[in-house]
C-alpha cells in the first residue's frame, strides 16, 4: 500500500478524476447535478492532463444525452475506453443505447449523480428514480454512499467492467454526495494502474471494429435467432458478481479500503436490520452504531452491487439472527407491489436456499428529491420494526395524512457526538459565503488530522439567493449525510436575515453566534427581533458582531465579505491556531484568485488582516428587551393557499407540510410571487416627472416588472399617498389624464437596467436622468404605500391605446412579475412583454432551463393574472420536447375550438338573432376584436343556459374555446439549437399557428455556462475554454429556408420598437413563427447593468443583425426579408472587449484573440452579405395569393387568427 494522499473535494470531482484518468473518449451533455463531472473532465483535457496511460482523453459535448450515449457507444465499438456522466431525464435519454451497449457485452462505466425524475414536477435534487428506471438495461449497477466510496467505486466499476464485459452504471446520490465536500484518501495513478488488468484493456481494444478484421454488429434478428442469442450472454452475468467481489478484494489489497457486494454493519446478532443503498446507508451506519451502543440488536446492510443481484451473497451477509428487515428505497414506483430493492429482497429470500432464515420483510420509501433522511427517522424505522406487525409500504420523513403511510419519528433526537464541531452559515450567493466555506473545509481537512464535511443548501432564486452552509469537523470520518440540526456555531452574513428567518434555529445551548452587523456591540441588541433575543438568552449563546461590509468596503471588496467572515469563524471556533488560520485563508485566497491578478489578492488579504480588529463580543443582557418580532412572511391579506402553503415554504419550513397540503397532480396556482417581498435591492429607481419624456422604456426593460407605467383620470388621484407622483400625460390618446411611473420597491433587484436605458437627461445636468438610483431603505415604506395605490388604479382600456408600440405596450399590466431571475436578466423582459401583449390568451410551453426555473420553481410563481382573472397558462414538459409539447397544445386547442364551432353551428338557430354567425365570423386580430368576442361569448353563455339540447350543454363547457388563444413555445438556446432542435425543426415545418420565442443567451445558462451551438465564434464557454472555434448556428436562416415560417431576430436593448413589432407580427402570422431574442446573461461575464449597451453594440458591430422575415410579403412581390439594422458601424472588438467570455481569450493569448476577432468580423460580414442579398431578393412577379399565404392548417382548425 502506498502512503495515502488525502484530499478534500466533492464526489463529482473525485469521480470525474478517476473516470478521466481511466478513459480515452468522454462524451457528455450538461445536466444537474452531474454537470461538474463533465466540466472537470473537459478542463483537465484542455490543460493537457493525461490519463494513466499517458494520453489526454478526448472530451466532446454533444447535443443531448441521447447524443452522448450514441457517441460513447461508437467510441466503444471502435475499441476506445469511454465514459459519460449524467442524471435524471438525461439518463433516460441514454436508455436505448444502454440496452445496445449491454447487449453487445461492452466494457463501459457511466457515472450517475442520481437525481429525481420529473413527474408531477421537476426536481433537480437526488433520489434513485432515474437509476431504477435502468434496471432492465442489462447494466451492472453499483451504488456508492459517500464521497470516498464514489471515488473508489468509480475505479472498481471501470476495472470490473473490463474484466466482466458487463457495462456498469455507477451511481451516488445527487447533491447529497455529488456536491458534498469531504476529506478522502485519493487514488493515485499507480493504484489505478495496479488495479486495472492491462490484458482486459487489450481484449477490449481487440474487440473494436476494424476493417482489418471486419465483423458486423447490430444485426436485425428474427424469431428463429433472437431469443437464443439473447440468452447467450448469461454466463457473463452469472460471472459478474464474483468478478466485482474479486475486484473489491484486490482494491482492498492495494488501498486498504475494503468493500463487499453487501456490507453489513451493526450488532453481530442483530434482530432488526435495514437494507438500503446510497448516502442513506451512511446515516444508517451512524445510527446503528449509536443504537448498538445503547444495547439494541440492530444492523444495516449496505447494498453495493444492486445489479446483477447476488442472492447468495446477500443472504449470507445478514446475521442469522435477523427477524425483521426494513428495505428502504429512495424511489417510488406507483402501482408496484413495492419499490425495486424491496421486491428484490423479498425475492431473494423466496429463492434463498432451504434452511436460511425467513425474517419478516417490510419496505418503505424515504428521501425523495433529497428530502432529509436523519438518524431520528432511522430510529423511527427500527422502532416500528420492533412491533409485532411493522408497517409495510411505509414512508418516512414526511407526514402523510392522506393515505397514512408515514412512520412517526422523534425530530428532537440528536445522536451526533460532542467532538464534532458543527457550524451553520447563512449568506447570500453574491457575498461569497459558500466559496469561502469550501475553502474552510479544505483548510481544516488539509491542516489537521481531522475530518471535515461541507454541504450547501441554496434557495431557488437567481437574484439575491440565500445560501446555507453546513460544516462539520471531527476526529473520525463523517457519515452524517443530513443537515446539521444542532450547531456549535451559527454565522449570519447578512443582517437583514435576522428579521426574515429563524437563523438561530439550529443553535445549541452555549453555541457561538456571529452576526455581520452594521450596528456595533453596544447597539446591536436593540436592533434584533424579539425571537432572536429570546433564543440568545434562553440558549445562553455567545454573541459576536463584525461590520464586515465596512471592512470589505475599506479593503475595496464591495460586498464580498466572505474571507472576513471566514477569518472570524476560525477565530471564534478556534478550530485552528489563529496565525495558522490567517495564513491558510490567505493561501486559499491565493489558490483561488492568484490568476485573477495581484490586486484581487491584495484587497482580499487586506480584508482578512482587518477582520479580527472589527470582531467584538456582545455583552448579552440577562433578559429580552425587544417588543417587536419578525414580521409575518406574507401579509394577512394573502389568499388562503398562500397563507397555508406558500408562506410555509417561504419560511423554510416546507418539510413540515403534510401530504394533504399539496395538489394531487402538480397543478399549482399562479400569481403567488406578489406575496413574497424580498427587499433585495440596496438602491431602487426614483422617478423625476420633470425630466421624464414618458417613453415607458424603463418599464419595458425591467426584468422583474418592478417599474411600471400607467395613465389614469385625474379624479383617481383622490386618496393618493402624499408622496405619490404623477404628471400630465403628454400624448393625444388619454388627453388630459395623469401619467405615472411607479417602482415596486420591495420587488426591485436594483439591477439599474432601467436607469441605464432611460434616454431622458436633465439638460443642465446630464448625470441626472428621469430615473436615478437612490437607497431603498429610506424609501421602502413610502414607496410600498405608493405602489399599493398604483396597483389599485384601473388599467387603461387597451382599445384606447393608440399604438401598441413600446410605449403603448407598457400600459398593459405585465402578467409575469417578480420572478427569481438574475438581477438584470436579459431574458425576462421579452417574457414580460409577451404577457403584456397576449398574456390574457396565452398558453406557454416552456422548455426546461432558466426560463422554467424562474418561471416555475417553487415556492412562488411569477406568472399572474389580470383583473379579470385571466393570464398565461404555463407548463413545462421536458427539455428536449418543448416544440412538440407546444404544438400539441395548439392541436388540442384547435380541436376544442373546432368542436365548439361545430356545436355553435348546430345550436345557432336556437340563439338570439345572428349571435352564432357573429361569433363564427368574428375578427379577433386585435385586442378590441378579442374583447368583443369575449362579450359575445358571455352573451352566448347566457343564451345557452336555458337550452336543454345535448349540443347546447356540451357547448356551454366549450364556450371559451371560441375566443382566440395564442400558443407560445418558449425556451433557451440549449433547447432550440441543440437538444430540442429536431423537434423544433419539425414543428416549424408544419403549418400550425405556433409562436416560438428563443431566449438566446448563446450558452447553457441554467446549468452553468456550457457552450451550445448558439455560442458565437470566439467566445469562451465551458467545453470551449479556448474559445469556440466554429460559428454560431444560424437558426433563423435555417427556418427561413422553409419559406412559410415567420422569422425574426430581435434585441430589445438595441431596437425596442423592432422587438415589439416582431413579437406582434409573429403572433399575428397565421402559421409557425420563430423569434430569436438576444438575451444578455451573467454567463457573458460582465455587469448586467450594461446589458442593453452590449445589445446595442452587438447590433452596431453586425454580430446580431436585426431582421424580420415575413412570408406574407411575397404575396406583394416583395422580398420577405427586411433588415432592421444597418451596416456595421463599429469594430467587433468594441463589443467583444467588454465581455469576459471574449476577454479571457485575450488574456490567454492576444495573438489568438486578434485572429479570432478577424474571423468573427469575416464571419459576420459573410452572413450580413447573405442577408442583404436575401433582403433584395424578390419573386419578380406578384404571385397568386394562394401561393404566398402559408399553407392552411389541416382541419381541425379553429379559434385561429
Amino acid at each position, binding site marked *: 500500500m502506498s502512503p495515502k494522499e488525502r484530499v478534500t473535494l466533492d464526489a463529482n470531482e473525485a469521480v470525474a478524476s478517476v473516470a478521466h484518468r481511466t478513459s480515452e473518449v468522454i462524451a457528455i451533455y450538461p445536466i*444537474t447535478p452531474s*454537470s*461538474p463531472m463533465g466540466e472537470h473532465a473537459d*478542463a483537465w483535457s484542455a*490543460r493537457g492532463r493525461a490519463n494513466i496511460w499517458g494520453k489526454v482523453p478526448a472530451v466532446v459535448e454533444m447535443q443531448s444525452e441521447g447524443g452522448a450515449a450514441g457517441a460513447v457507444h461508437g467510441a466503444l465499438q471502435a475499441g476506445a475506453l469511454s465514459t459519460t456522466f449524467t442524471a435524471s431525464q438525461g439518463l433516460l435519454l441514454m436508455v436505448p443505447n444502454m440496452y445496445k451497449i449491454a447487449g453487445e457485452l461492452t466494457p463501459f462505466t457511466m457515472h450517475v449523480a442520481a437525481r429525481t425524475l420529473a413527474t408531477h414536477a421537476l426536481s*433537480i*435534487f437526488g433520489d434513485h428514480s432515474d437509476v431504477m428506471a435502468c434496471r432492465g438495461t442489462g447494466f451492472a449497477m453499483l451504488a456508492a454512499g459517500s464521497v470516498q466510496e464514489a471515488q473508489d467505486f468509480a475505479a472498481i466499476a471501470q476495472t470490473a467492467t473490463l474484466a466482466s464485459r458487463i457495462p456498469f452504471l455507477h451511481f451516488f446520490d445527487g*447533491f447529497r454526495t455529488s456536491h458534498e465536500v469531504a476529506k478522502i484518501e485519493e487514488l493515485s495513478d499507480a493504484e489505478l494502474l495496479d488495479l486495472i488488468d492491462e490484458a482486459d484493456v487489450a481484449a477490449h481494444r481487440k474487440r473494436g471494429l476494424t476493417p482489418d478484421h471486419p465483423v458486423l454488429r447490430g444485426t436485425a434478428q428474427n424469431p428463429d435467432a433472437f431469443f437464443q442469442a439473447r440468452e447467450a450472454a448469461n454466463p457473463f452475468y452469472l460471472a459478474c458478481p464474483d468478478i466485482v467481489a474479486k475486484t473489491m478484494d484486490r482494491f482492498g489489497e492495494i488501498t486498504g479500503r475494503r468493500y463487499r457486494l453487501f456490507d453489513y454493519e451493526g450488532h453481530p446478532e442483530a434482530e432488526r436490520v435495514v437494507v438500503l443503498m446510497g448516502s442513506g446507508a451512511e446515516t444508517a451506519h451512524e445510527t446503528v452504531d449509536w443504537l448498538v451502543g445503547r444495547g439494541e440488536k440492530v444492523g444495516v446492510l449496505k447494498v453495493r452491487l444492486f445489479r446483477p443481484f447476488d442472492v447468495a451473497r446477500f443472504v449470507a451477509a445478514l446475521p442469522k439472527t435477523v427477524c425483521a428487515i426494513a428495505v428502504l428505497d429512495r424511489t417510488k414506483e406507483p402501482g408496484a407491489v413495492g419499490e425495486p430493492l424491496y421486491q428484490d429482497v423479498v425475492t431473494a429470500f423466496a429463492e434463498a436456499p432451504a434452511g436460511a432464515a425467513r425474517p419478516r420483510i417490510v419496505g418503505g420509501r424515504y428521501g425523495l428529491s433529497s428530502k432529509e433522511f436523519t438518524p431520528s427517522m432511522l430510529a423511527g424505522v427500527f422502532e416500528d420494526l420492533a412491533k409485532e406487525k411493522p408497517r409495510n409500504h411505509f414512508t418516512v420523513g414526511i407526514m402523510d395524512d392522506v393515505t397514512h403511510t408515514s412512520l412517526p419519528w422523534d425530530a428532537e433526537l440528536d445522536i451526533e457526538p460532542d467532538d464534532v464541531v458543527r457550524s451553520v452559515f447563512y449568506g*447570500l*450567493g*453574491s457575498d*461569497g*459565503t*459558500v*466559496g469561502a466555506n*469550501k475553502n474552510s473545509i479544505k483548510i481544516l481537512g488539509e491542516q489537521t488530522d481531522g475530518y471535515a464535511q461541507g454541504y*450547501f443548501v*441554496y434557495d*431557488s*432564486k*437567481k437574484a439575491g439567493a440565500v*445560501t446555507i452552509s453546513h460544516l462539520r469537523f471531527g476526529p473520525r470520518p463523517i457519515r452524517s449525510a443530513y443537515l446539521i440540526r444542532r450547531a456549535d456555531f451559527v454565522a449570519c452574513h447578512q443582517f437583514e436575515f435576522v428579521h426574515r428567518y429563524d437563523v438561530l434555529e439550529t443553535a445549541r445551548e452555549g453555541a457561538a453566534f456571529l452576526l455581520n452587523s452594521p450596528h456595533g456591540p453596544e447597539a446591536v441588541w436593540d436592533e434584533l427581533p424579539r425571537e432572536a433575543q429570546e433564543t440568545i438568552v434562553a440558549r445562553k449563546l455567545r454573541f459576536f458582531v463584525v461590520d464586515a461590509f465596512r471592512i470589505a468596503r475599506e479593503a*475595496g471588496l464591495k460586498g*464580498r465579505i466572505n474571507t472576513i467572515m471566514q477569518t472570524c469563524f476560525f477565530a471564534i471556533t478556534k478550530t485552528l491556531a489563529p496565525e495558522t488560520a490567517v495564513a491558510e485563508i490567505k493561501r486559499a485566497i491565493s489558490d483561488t*484568485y492568484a*490568476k*485573477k*491578478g*495581484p*490586486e*484581487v489578492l491584495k484587497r482580499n488579504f487586506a480584508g482578512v488582516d482587518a477582520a479580527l480588529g472589527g470582531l467584538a463580543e456582545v455583552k448579552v443582557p440577562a433578559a429580552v428587551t425587544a417588543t417587536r418580532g419578525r414580521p409575518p412572511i406574507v401579509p394577512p391579506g394573502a389568499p388562503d393557499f398562500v397563507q397555508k402553503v406558500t408562506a410555509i415554504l417561504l419560511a423554510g419550513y416546507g418539510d413540515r407540510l403534510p401530504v394533504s397540503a399539496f395538489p394531487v397532480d402538480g397543478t399549482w396556482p399562479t400569481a403567488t410571487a406578489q406575496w413574497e417581498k424580498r427587499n433585495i435591492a440596496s438602491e431602487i429607481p426614483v422617478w423625476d416627472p420633470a425630466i421624464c419624456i414618458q417613453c415607458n422604456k424603463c418599464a419595458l426593460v425591467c426584468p422583474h416588472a418592478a417599474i411600471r407605467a400607467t395613465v389614469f383620470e385625474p379624479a383617481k388621484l383622490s386618496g393618493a399617498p402624499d408622496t405619490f407622483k404623477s404628471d400630465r400625460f403628454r400624448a393625444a390618446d388619454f388627453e388630459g389624464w395623469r401619467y405615472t411611473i411607479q417602482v415596486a420597491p420591495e420587488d426591485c433587484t436594483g439591477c439599474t437596467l432601467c436607469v441605464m436605458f432611460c*434616454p431622458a*437627461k436633465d*439638460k443642465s445636468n*446630464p448625470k441626472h436622468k428621469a430615473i436615478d438610483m437612490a437607497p431603498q431603505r429610506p424609501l421602502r415604506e413610502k414607496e410600498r404605500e405608493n405602489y399599493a395605490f398604483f396597483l389599485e388604479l384601473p388599467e387603461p382600456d387597451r382599445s384606447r391605446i393608440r399604438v401598441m408600440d413600446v410605449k403603448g405596450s407598457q400600459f398593459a399590466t405585465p402578467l409575469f412579475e417578480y420572478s427569481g431571475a438574475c438581477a438584470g436578466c436579459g431574458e425576462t423582459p421579452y417574457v414580460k412583454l409577451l404577457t403584456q401583449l397576449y398574456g390574457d390568451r396565452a398558453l406557454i410551453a416552456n422548455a426546461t432551463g432558466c426560463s422554467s*426555473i424562474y418561471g416555475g420553481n417553487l415556492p412562488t410563481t411569477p406568472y399572474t393574472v389580470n383583473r379579470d382573472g385571466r393570464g398565461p397558462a404555463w407548463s413545462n414538459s421536458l427539455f428536449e420536447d418543448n416544440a412538440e409539447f407546444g404544438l400539441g397544445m395548439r392541436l388540442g386547442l384547435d380541436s376544442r375550438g373546432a368542436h365548439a364551432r361545430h356545436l355553435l353551428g348546430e345550436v345557432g338557430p336556437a340563439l338570439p338573432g345572428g349571435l352564432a354567425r357573429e361569433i363564427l365570423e368574428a375578427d379577433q386580430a386585435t385586442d378590441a376584436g378579442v374583447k368583443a368576442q369575449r362579450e359575445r361569448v358571455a352573451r352566448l353563455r347566457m343564451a345557452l343556459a336555458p337550452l336543454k339540447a345535448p349540443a347546447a350543454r356540451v357547448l356551454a363547457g366549450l364556450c371559451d374555446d371560441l375566443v382566440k388563444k395564442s400558443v407560445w413555445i418558449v425556451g433557451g438556446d440549449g433547447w432550440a439549437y441543440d437538444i430540442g432542435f429536431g423537434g423544433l425543426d419539425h414543428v416549424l415545418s408544419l403549418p400550425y399557428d405556433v409562436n416560438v420565442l428563443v431566449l438566446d443567451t448563446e450558452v447553457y*445558462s*441554467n*446549468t*452553468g*455556462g456550457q457552450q451550445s451551438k448558439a455560442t458565437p465564434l470566439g467566445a*469562451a464557454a*465551458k467545453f470551449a*475554454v479556448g474559445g469556440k472555434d466554429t460559428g454560431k448556428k444560424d437558426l433563423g436562416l435555417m427556418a427561413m429556408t422553409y419559406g412559410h415560417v415567420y422569422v425574426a431576430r430581435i434585441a430589445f436593448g438595441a431596437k425596442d420598437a423592432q422587438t415589439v413589432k416582431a413579437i406582434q407580427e409573429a403572433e399575428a402570422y397565421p402559421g409557425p413563427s420563430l423569434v430569436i431574442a438576444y438575451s444578455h*446573461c*451573467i*454567463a457573458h*461575464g*460582465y*455587469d448586467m447593468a450594461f446589458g442593453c449597451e452590449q445589445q446595442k453594440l452587438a447590433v452596431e458591430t453586425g454580430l446580431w443583425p436585426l431582421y424580420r422575415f415575413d412570408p406574407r410579403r411575397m404575396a406583394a412581390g416583395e422580398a420577405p426579408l427586411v433588415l432592421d439594422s444597418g451596416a456595421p458601424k463599429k469594430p467587433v472588438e468594441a463589443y467583444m472587449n467588454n465581455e*469576459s*467570455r471574449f*476577454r*479571457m*481569450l485575450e*488574456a*490567454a493569448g*492576444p*495573438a489568438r484573440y*486578434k485572429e479570432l476577432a478577424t474571423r468573427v468580423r469575416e464571419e459576420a460580414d459573410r452572413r450580413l452579405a447573405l442577408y442583404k442579398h436575401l433582403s433584395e431578393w424578390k419573386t419578380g412577379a406578384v404571385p397568386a395569393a394562394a401561393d404566398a399565404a402559408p399553407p392552411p392548417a389541416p382541419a381541425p382548425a379553429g379559434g385561429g387568427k
Partner: protein
Amino acid sequence: MDLSTTYLGFELPHPLMPGSSPLADDLDSVRRLEDAGAAAIVLRSLFEEQIVGDELATYRAHTGAAESHAEAASYLPDPAVFALGTHDYLEQIQKIKAAVKVPVIASLNGTTPESWIEYARLIEQAGADALEINIYELATDPLESGEDVEDRTVAVVAAVREAVKIPIAAKLSPFYSSLSHLAGRIERAGANGLVLFNRFYQPDIDAENLEIEPRLYLSSPVELLLRLRWLAVLSGQFQGSLAVTGGVHNAIDAVKAVMAGAHAVQMVSVLMRRGPETLTRLRADLTRWLEEHGYDSLRQMQGSMSYGRGGDAAAIERSNYMRILQSWRPDDA
C-alpha cells in the same frame, strides 16, 4: 550613410523605432518590425489603473454569480487557465526579448509610488532593456498646485530610478508651466531620457445624447511642430537622451526632429496605417535625404536646429508666433 545614434545608452544603427502602442502586442508584428529594421521595440504602456480595473471587473464577473444556485457553481470556464494582472504584459516582454535582438523598451503608468516601484521591478525582472515612465494624468484636483504635480512626477522618477538599474525615460505631456525647469528636475532625479510628448485621448462630447465619448485620432503631421519646438528648447538644456513621438510621418519629419535634437524618433500612426514595413522605406528615405544634402552622418545634424545653436530662443519663438498670427486668414481654416 552613417545613421547611428545613441539613445538611453544604446548604440543604435539609426533613430527610427515604433512608439509605445499596440504594434508590439503580437509577436508576429514585432518580428515584422524587427525585419523592417526597427532600432528598438517599444511596448504599449502597462496602465496600472486599467490592469486593476480589469482584474476587479473579471473578479466580479466570475465571483458575483458563483456559488449562488444549486444548478451551477459558476457560469464561466475555470479562469485558472487564464491570466490577468501584469502576467501577460510581463510574459510579452519575455517573449519579445526572446524573439528579437534589438533593445526592448517597456512602458509603465502607475497610480501610487508603491505600485510604480513594484511594477517597474517586475518589468526589469521580465527582461526589459529600458523603461518609459509614462506620466499620463490630468491634474484636476483644485487643491493640488502645479508644483505639487511636478513634485509627484519627480518623486515617481526618483522612486523608479531607485528601484531599477535599467535606463529610464520620462514620457511627458507638454502641459507644464515650465517644462525646462521640470526637465532639469527629472534629470536630477535620475532619468536617462525624455520622450516628447504623450498624446492624451481627448474625450469628445456627443451633443445628441449628452454623453462623453472617448475618441482616438491617430496623430497628424501638424502635431510635430509642438514637439520640434520643445526638442529644440530642451536639446542642450537636458543632458540625457531625447526622443520624439507624435507627428512623425515621413523621412523629412524625422530629419526635422533630429535637427531639433532628437536621439530617437518614434512612430505609431504611420506604422499602424501602412504597416511595419514602412520603416524600411523611411530609413531608405532618410539615408537618401542625408546623401542628397551632403551630410556625412546623422550625428552631424543632430541638434543643429536646436535653439541653443540657432540663436536666441525666446526671440525666435515670439516672432514666429506673431508672424503666424498675423498671416492667419479665416479662409485658411
